[in-house]
């Protein structure tokens, strides 16, 4: 009799996700899927609302990356109001906000979600393999993680106005500059943050290099990679054109204006998942799926425009002889590389007097369609709106970062399940965690679900081939 294993939700990722693994009578994996309950209803929820509400209201999508949605929506609204070029102060304030978001998000993922697995091992007792375990055994590291995250959050507060439901980015610009006092507060600590970022990068790099042979096959596969890219080929997390490369580094398309994304990207619907599966149109759904996020961005860019991150990029690329790195677990190294880059960019911006400028907003000729793309912490984020003559949103299409990584996460689950669970009669916590480790490499955010007290159990259920429940375990 075959049986189905369901893990719901996956620990240490957001919202309601579950993994189902179908085993045959010999405990060999015959099918493995990562199901995501995405709240597509949000696109309908915002229809009929005035367009200028978008940068604020879309932050309700997610408690983890509200700033990314805030800025992507603001960029789309810029297009609606004909603001084709922001003032230097507005553009740099938004960039500062964005790099603060990248810093806090990457720091949270590495120290809170990833480091327990790396420091204690995938099979370690979950009672110690968590952030509290890190706090007890590696106190200095835990303090650094918390303080880096807090620094990023404070930058968001200073640029967006507040930590949640920020209002900083407005149609055509920004509603405040950075005061001298705010700037000096951040400058006071930037050297320390830089030092900690270097240390975090070293941990991720050393771990990957020292365990390279073990990590190479872990949930890994050749894939296409997609990201925004600056016109000169530099990594740019705030703005750029689309570039996609294949597993060998050949360009599939390059310097595509984000307004033309629908000519190059399509989404496939599958009956068993609420989340769509995006793909590159010219390659079709079977071969056109791609990865986004830190690994993809480091692979697609020609260089990084900050010195320490660029040196780190060169070391990263040398591991795969300057070909794209397709090792799933290398996401962690790439993420810390971006964390250092973000701190370097924050330092650069804090020393730029444009942040104290008073020219904050531009206006232009109104349009009925706006598209805003951004490299969010987890990958490329698409916001697309159409409005009517009464300024109401009549169409919204959002492709969130985690959706772009849908197929890769499914492939990672299938690969790890086949490698680590097949033939094992007893499904242990450690084995299940191997699957979760592969998913966590992508740092998925499964759209904010409610989290009220008593609503976050981990449920493991076994089903037979006919869908009958064999047994179920719930971990509160």
């Amino acid at each position, binding site marked *: 009799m075959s049986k189905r294993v369901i893990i719901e*939700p996956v*620990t*240490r*990722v*957001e*919202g309601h996700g579950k993994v189902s693994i179908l085993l045959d009578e010999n405990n060999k994996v015959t099918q493995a899927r990562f199901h995501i309950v995405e*709240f597509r*209803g*949000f696109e309908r*929820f915002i229809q009929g609302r005035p367009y200028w509400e978008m940068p604020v209201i879309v932050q*309700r999508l997610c*408690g*983890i990356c*509200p700033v990314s949605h805030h800025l992507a929506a603001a960029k789309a609204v810029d297009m609606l109001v004909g603001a084709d070029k922001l003032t230097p102060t507005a553009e740099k304030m938004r960039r500062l906000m964005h790099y603060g978001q990248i810093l*806090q998000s990457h720091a*949270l*993922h590495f*120290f*809170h*979600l990833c480091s327990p697995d790396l420091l204690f091992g995938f099979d370690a007792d*979950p*009672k110690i393999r*968590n*952030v*509290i*375990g890190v*706090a*007890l055994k590696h*106190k200095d590291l*835990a*303090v650094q*993680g*918390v*303080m880096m*995250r*807090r620094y990023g*959050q404070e930058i968001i507060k200073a640029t967006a106005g507040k*930590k*949640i439901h920020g209002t900083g980015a407005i149609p055509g610009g920004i509603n405040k500059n950075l005061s001298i006092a705010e700037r000096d507060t951040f400058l006071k600590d930037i050297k320390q943050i830089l030092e900690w970022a270097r240390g975090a990068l070293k941990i991720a790099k050393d771990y990957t290099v020292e365990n390279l042979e073990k990590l190479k096959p872990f949930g890994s596969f050749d894939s296409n990679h997609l990201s925004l890219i600056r016109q000169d080929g530099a990594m740019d997390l705030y703005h750029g054109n689309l570039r996609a490369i294949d597993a060998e580094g050949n360009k599939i398309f390059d310097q595509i204006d984000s307004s033309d994304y629908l000519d190059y990207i399509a989404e496939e619907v599958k009956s068993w998942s609420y989340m769509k599966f995006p793909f590159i149109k010219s390659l079709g759904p079977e071969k056109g799926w791609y990865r986004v996020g830190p690994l993809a961005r480091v692979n697609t860019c020609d260089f990084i425009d900050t010195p320490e991150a660029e040196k780190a990029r060169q070391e990263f690329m040398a591991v795969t002889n300057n070909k794209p790195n397709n090792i799933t677990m290398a996401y962690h190294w790439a993420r810390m590389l971006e964390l250092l880059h973000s701190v370097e960019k924050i330092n650069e911006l804090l020393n730029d007097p444009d942040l104290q400028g008073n020219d904050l907003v531009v206006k232009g000729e109104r349009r009925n369609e706006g598209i805003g793309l951004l490299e969010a912490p987890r990958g490329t984020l698409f916001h697309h709106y159409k409005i009517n003559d009464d300024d109401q949103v009549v169409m919204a299409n959002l492709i969130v970062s985690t959706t772009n990584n849908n197929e890769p996460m499914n492939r990672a689950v299938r690969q790890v399940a086949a490698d680590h669970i097949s033939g094992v009669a007893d499904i242990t916590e450690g084995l299940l965690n191997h699957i979760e480790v592969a998913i966590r490499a992508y740092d998925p*955010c499964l759209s*904010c*679900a*409610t*989290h*009220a*007290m*008593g*609503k*976050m159990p*981990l449920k493991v259920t076994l089903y037979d081939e006919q869908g009958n429940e064999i047994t179920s375990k719930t*971990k*509160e």
Partner: protein
Amino acid sequence: MTANNKKILLLGFGNPARADDGLGPAVADSIETKNLPDVVVEADYQLTVEDSAQITEYDIVIFADASANGPEPFSFEPLNARQEGSFSSHSVEPAQVMALAEKLFGSKAKAFMLGVRGYEFNRFDAGLSEKAKANMEKAVDFIADLLKTKNFNKLNKEIACF
């Protein structure tokens, strides 16, 4: 330090766009309008690790959250730091925040958990259900009185639920 000059943090958390999940921030908003002395009010979607650093600045911390299956109209009880964090997402639970505050930053703060009973969590709506709103108003009255008198020492588990 006497009871009357203790620094207090009230931290309401939840997603205001998900109906009754917004009870925590709603409590925070309501308490903030009362401008109580020595009381700082914060609201967020969820608790995260850096909240542990902020807690070190306070003597008493009150976490306010929606409760999916707790007593009506609300519960209020002392909260002990819990070191085990066997299950979590990007967010952390109040007990884990307190454990991090204690282990990483030497916090001695006392913590309390306010759980306001909610009923509707699975719809995209910025408004609370009527029953949840009524529960919240009772909880706010209770917390506001407590914050004025600061008689935390009288609280114990026997009077935890209301």
